[in-house]
């Protein structure tokens, strides 16, 4: 246990452990199993502690944003509040509507956890510190995010509750709308780095000493917005909009089942922050500072930096209406993402084929930043113009013809 005391931030001693294991057991399978278990334990610990910490962070920071105190009674600065919350949720009665769909009703709280956990497997925490070094990392992340909305749909449908079903339908509609700009936005870093492997993309950023966010400002914007929508967080939480449809898909879930949905939302926020950090903001690298600070601490720091941004968004923005949210995806994000893919592909092709050297990256960055500014300005102007804001055809209200009641016949006088 000395290696834990000497350098608690250092993973090198694990090498000795693996070599010792290989020498004693004489086979690589045991090393494989042990490293898989150790890595999974580390990730689960981070995610579990992260969920607890995020409950506190979220409530305190939103409290500060909204000029109130937030939880400050349980423990020092309210630090034990998440524990108290968890105890409350665990000892609550588990209710299940009689007309709900038995097994399916109990499945979603577990099912939503799986993609949330699996997302953390492909992150690069440090050079060579990757749990699953997938060649198709970016696609894998997209696949996981589409599975989450499926679990939420099952939750809403199996509750056999009108409001839950409305929430489920909203989730599905939103998943269809926001998946497209998300995929197109994540295509840009893949085109530039030439790989879908997440450690590979981080290495590209280290090699050229530039964060992809500077080269690709538009995809960062598009991805951050569509990820917030997929997360069901406040500017886009139409699936559980409590002022419209009670609590949406988790209306019928009580006790720890609700708690699991709540925890998954926080874990997914961490995952999205991790994706933004590693694909667009250099992952574990920090312009040479990773020589002095352990890279995985830098990465966690970046995750929490972007997570703070998400909390800020939640604390300050009102909820969008369903049609506004859909229109925003189809009229703004998807055209912007398509334009961006063509633009980035052209630039990268020029750079690769003409072998223009590193200075061309600066040109790409300048062009893309200017174009991002101009395009965003243009789209905001178009979408807020009176042409788009005002309805051009008659709304359905008063338009649906209601069959008139049969004319009252002569009533026999009594």
């Amino acid at each position, binding site marked *: 246990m000395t290696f834990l005391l000497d*350098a608690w931030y*250092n*993973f*090198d001693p*694990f*090498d000795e452990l*693996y070599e010792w294991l290989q020498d004693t057991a004489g086979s*690589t*399978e045991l*090393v*494989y199993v042990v*490293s*898989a278990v*150790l*890595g999974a334990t580390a990730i689960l610990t981070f995610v579990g502690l992260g969920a607890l910490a995020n409950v506190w962070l979220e409530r305190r920071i939103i409290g500060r944003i909204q000029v109130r105190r937030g939880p400050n009674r349980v423990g020092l600065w309210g630090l034990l509040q998440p524990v108290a919350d968890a105890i409350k949720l665990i000892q609550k009665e588990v209710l299940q509507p009689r007309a709900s769909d038995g097994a*399916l009703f109990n499945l979603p709280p577990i099912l939503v956890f799986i993609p949330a956990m699996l997302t953390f497997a492909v992150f*690069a925490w*440090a*050079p*060579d*510190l*990757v*749990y*699953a*070094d*997938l*060649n*198709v990392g970016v*696609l*894998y992340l*997209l*696949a996981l995010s*589409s*599975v989450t*909305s*499926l679990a939420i*749909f*099952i939750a809403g*449908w199996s509750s056999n509750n009108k409001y839950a*079903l409305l929430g*489920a*339908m909203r989730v*599905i*509609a939103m*998943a*269809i709308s926001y*998946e497209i700009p998300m995929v197109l936005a994540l295509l840009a870093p893949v085109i530039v780095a030439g*790989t*879908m*492997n997440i*450690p*590979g993309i981080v*290495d590209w950023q*280290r*090699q050229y000493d530039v964060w992809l966010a500077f080269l690709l400002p538009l995809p960062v914007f598009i991805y951050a917005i569509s990820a917030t929508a997929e997360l069901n967080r406040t500017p886009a939480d139409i699936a559980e909009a409590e002022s419209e449809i009670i609590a949406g898909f988790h209306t019928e879930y009580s006790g720890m089942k609700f708690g699991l949905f709540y925890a998954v939302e926080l874990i997914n926020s961490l995952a999205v922050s991790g994706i933004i950090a590693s694909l667009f903001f250099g992952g574990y690298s920090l312009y040479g500072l990773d*020589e002095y600070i*352990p*890279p*995985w601490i830098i990465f966690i720091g970046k995750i929490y930096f972007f997570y703070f941004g998400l909390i800020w968004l939640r604390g300050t923005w009102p909820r969008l209406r369903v049609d506004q949210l859909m229109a925003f995806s189809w009229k703004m994000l998807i055209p912007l993402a398509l334009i961006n893919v063509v633009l980035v592909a052209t630039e990268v092709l020029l750079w690769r084929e003409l072998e223009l050297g590193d200075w061309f990256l600066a040109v790409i960055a300048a062009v893309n930043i200017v174009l991002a500014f101009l395009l965003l300005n243009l789209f905001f102007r178009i979408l807020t113009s009176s042409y788009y804001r005002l309805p051009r*055809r008659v709304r359905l209200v008063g338009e649906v013809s209601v069959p008139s009641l049969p004319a009252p016949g002569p009533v026999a006088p009594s």
Partner: protein
Amino acid sequence: MQNGKGAPEHGAQQHARLSVCLRCGEGRGVVVDDTAVVVAFYVLAVLTLGSALMVSLVRDLIHAVLFLILSFVGVAGLYITLSADFVAVVQVLIYAGAISVLMLFAILLTPRSARDNSAVSYRAPISIVAGLVGAVIIFVGLKTDWATVSEEDRFPQTAAEIGKALLDPYVLPFEVASVLLVIAMVGAIILVRPGSEER
């Protein structure tokens, strides 16, 4: 103090197979033993076929779609045992994530179809056709001389190979498929255009 200066070519020269390891550099990506792959194959085959069977046995249409999704996930697992990582992930993304969502949406919009679709006409002809299709597949599977790939010849990176294949030798079918999709989209837009039924 540092975690070693990593070799920058992570994963680039690695096997396409999922390599779960804490430190993936220096050839430490341990390949799963063959018996594990065999066990995984049987588990996934049972999962895929069992849930496919349930699709046709279950009465509730939503349950059927959910079993279908489970079957898709099982097929994705089978692709992973074949080292086809790109196809596996795309299988989850497209089939489990997008197609199934579209099916669920369609079922939700036709409310009466959601529950108890036990009344099936043409039961006998359907069974015969399905049986014939199954027989053909089994016959072809048994009769074909399957080329086996040795450990060294395994695809280094399936995504890049598939991309090259789609844009070089198979560029025409690829473009034809996208034209087909555009036509379908235009058709859908024309169908739902406001006022199209009045004209």
